[in-house]
């Protein structure tokens, strides 16, 4: 029984934290996310060289070949520093190819993800914002071995920067008559752009496909297996987001707590008052609790345990309901300055808004829990 990290993982955490503290303190984060691309490509390259970008990509494809629990350590740190990067999207896309792609597809795409030169993302949602099979409406026309895609994908993470999209499409009207294909940004008929988003540290956009011809060597899977593939990518995404949320929530709690230790009103530090202490203690209790849930979920994912999906949904439901409150309470406890652009707590409040719906909100995950045979 060991619900903790290895020495190597602890060292990795220290290394990532040091890197981010040096290269991406919040004043840098603000500059990076307001830049054209929304992140610093040079830094991303450096992270790739340190092995953080391809952490879970097999060594034969240029990655470090480590498990998800090790990635969790990195995600907690990128979350803590609100680091703007394509890491999450890239992991989802690379895992899609690792899990469902052929040897040739893996050899073609994964090295670029690992060395930081290529960016990928999952394009799943459409109008209707529906994570069930019905939500996949983008129509595929078969043309021999190829397919032709037409339609619009919404809420695509890092859409504007992605070089390749893992696109969910519909073959026919049967519930699970869906497929997954890789679509390159440069292909004829593809256009992608980011929306104006609330959380500037997280880019999100749309992907338009207009009679896009996808050659057969870019198809990943179809039918029932494709739907379970999509489902498992949503689960993975939810797990990754929740892991980052643990770090982000600890960041929000840390800056609010240190504010409460400095700010004086009524002749005393406000952190002495129970009206300030108690909400902070409640935030702490919630963070520690979804932390336990998400740690277990990552372990269960690595071990291929059959309760991994349940564990993820529990963690995401809990975090989606409570992390946004950490931002709201954080702003409130700051008082007037919390409402300003200048103070950092607002960045965490916005992260809370971003994380609530992505890869399923609390309601979605409660329903998933019931579907999966939990309560």
């Amino acid at each position, binding site marked *: 029984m*060991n619900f903790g990290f290895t020495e190597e993982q602890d060292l990795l955490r220290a290394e990532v934290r040091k890197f981010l503290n040096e290269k991406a303190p919040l004043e840098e984060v603000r500059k990076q996310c307001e830049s054209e691309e929304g992140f610093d490509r040079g830094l991303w390259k450096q992270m790739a060289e340190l092995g953080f970008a391809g952490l879970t990509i097999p060594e034969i494809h240029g990655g470090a070949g480590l498990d998800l629990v090790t990635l969790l350590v990195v995600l907690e740190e990128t979350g803590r520093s609100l680091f703007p990067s394509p890491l999450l999207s890239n992991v989802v896309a690379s895992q899609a190819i690792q899990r469902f792609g052929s040897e040739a597809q893996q050899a073609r795409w994964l090295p670029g993800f690992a060395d930081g030169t290529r960016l990928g993302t999952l394009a799943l949602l459409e109008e209707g914002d529906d994570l069930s099979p019905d939500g996949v409406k983008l129509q595929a026309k078969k043309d021999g071995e190829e397919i032709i895609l037409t339609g619009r994908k919404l809420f695509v993470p890092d859409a504007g920067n992605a070089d390749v999209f893992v696109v969910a499409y519909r073959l026919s009207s049967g519930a699970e008559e869906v497929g997954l294909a890789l679509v390159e940004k440069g292909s004829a008929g593809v256009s992608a752009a980011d929306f104006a988003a609330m959380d500037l540290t997280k880019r999100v956009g749309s992907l338009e496909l207009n009679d896009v011809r996808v050659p057969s060597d870019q198809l990943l899977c179809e039918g029932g297996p494709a739907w379970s593939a999509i489902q498992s990518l949503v689960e993975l995404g939810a797990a990754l987001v929740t892991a980052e949320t643990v770090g982000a929530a600890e960041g929000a709690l840390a800056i609010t707590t240190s504010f409460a230790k400095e700010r004086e009103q009524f002749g005393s530090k406000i952190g002495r008052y129970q009206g300030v202490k108690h909400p902070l203690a409640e935030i702490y209790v919630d963070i520690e609790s979804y932390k336990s849930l998400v740690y277990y979920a990552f372990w269960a994912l690595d071990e291929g345990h059959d309760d991994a999906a349940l564990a993820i949904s529990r963690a995401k439901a809990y975090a989606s309901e409570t992390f946004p409150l950490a931002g709201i309470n954080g702003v409130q406890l700051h008082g007037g300055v919390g409402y300003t652009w200048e103070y950092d707590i607002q960045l965490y409040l916005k992260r809370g808004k971003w994380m609530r719906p992505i890869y399923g909100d609390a309601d979605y995950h409660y329903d998933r829990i019931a579907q999966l045979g939990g309560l």
Partner: protein
Amino acid sequence: MDFQLSPQEEKFRDEVRSFLKDNLPAQGEKRPADFLAQWNAKVREKRWVGFSWPSEVGGGGGSLMEQVILKEEMARAKAPGLGTCFMGLAWVGPSIIQYGTEEQKQKYIPDILDGAYQWCTGYSEPDSGSDLASLKCKCVREGDEYVVNGQKIWTSIAMWSKMMILLVRTDTEVDSKHDGITCLLVEMDSEGLEVRPIKNMGGGAMFAEVFFSDVRVPVENRLGDEGQGWQVTVSALANERSSIAEVYGLRRKMDELEDLAERTVRAGQKAIEMPSIRRRLQRADIRIEAMRLNGQRFLTKQLRGDPLGSETSINKLHRAALEVEMGELAMEITGSASTLMRGSDVAPENGRWADYALGWPEVVIGGGTPNIQKNIIAERLLGLPKD
């Protein structure tokens, strides 16, 4: 990270499982009249009563991990408790083992393990609840005896106990209120000691006021040194920090609630299918799972040799919130009938859930109120200034 048991731990788990299979009647099967007596004798013989205590005093000498396995398996099988002397096993025994004299150990420990009689705990006073260390119960030494005068309150099962672990003030001229407190082991039939049960809001009486007028306690009944009482108490309560039993208790209650929601039909719809009820059940369910996993994270810390500190307040807060919420949920599920007490023919499960909804203060307030737990977290874990 690794949640698997080692081969040796698995072997112990299998031993527990096969014991349970042999000695616990199957669900729904009628238990023989002498079942509990038999059970108590058998688990005592296995040395599973006081399993964490050293074998020299008659305990089981179980490792931390074995203790966890034993508790988990017992809870999962819905087995009766291990031993019957609740407070003796929970904190009186551990305190005596740590601070007691040889004579005290020989005199009290075997009886606690055998469940020969009950112990009660005389800590709280009318003006010293959350602020326990401000206690005033007066105690003066006269030769070989201490003379106690004062009052205790909220003393659970005082009326059924033979012995009490009592905190008194032996010194009022101290700089810190934590000094000058002494711990005594008192016979409940001592002259001048009076127990008055207090009726709680549920109508029952589990706790009492205890009055001391010139109660004489032999000096050999002092536990630890004079003035060391606070230390004795704090380390004794630290023994009660593992939340495994509570988690399984809540889990069992949750299963029963789910079952209640499944059987209850309101306006033609099963309660469990009402979205608002279902969400609340699910929310509680997730928190119980979080508590279980929090407990495993704390356990990992202990296994690595670090003592537990204030982080145990996390699960105490969860538990407090859940005990209240689950009682409310039972009321919400059963609607108008929820307000009926035992004896009404349409009271769900003969008023059991109504009792539950009136019973939470015992655990929610008893172990340190939620507001105190929040102060502990804010001050000791977040480093906010003391109030």
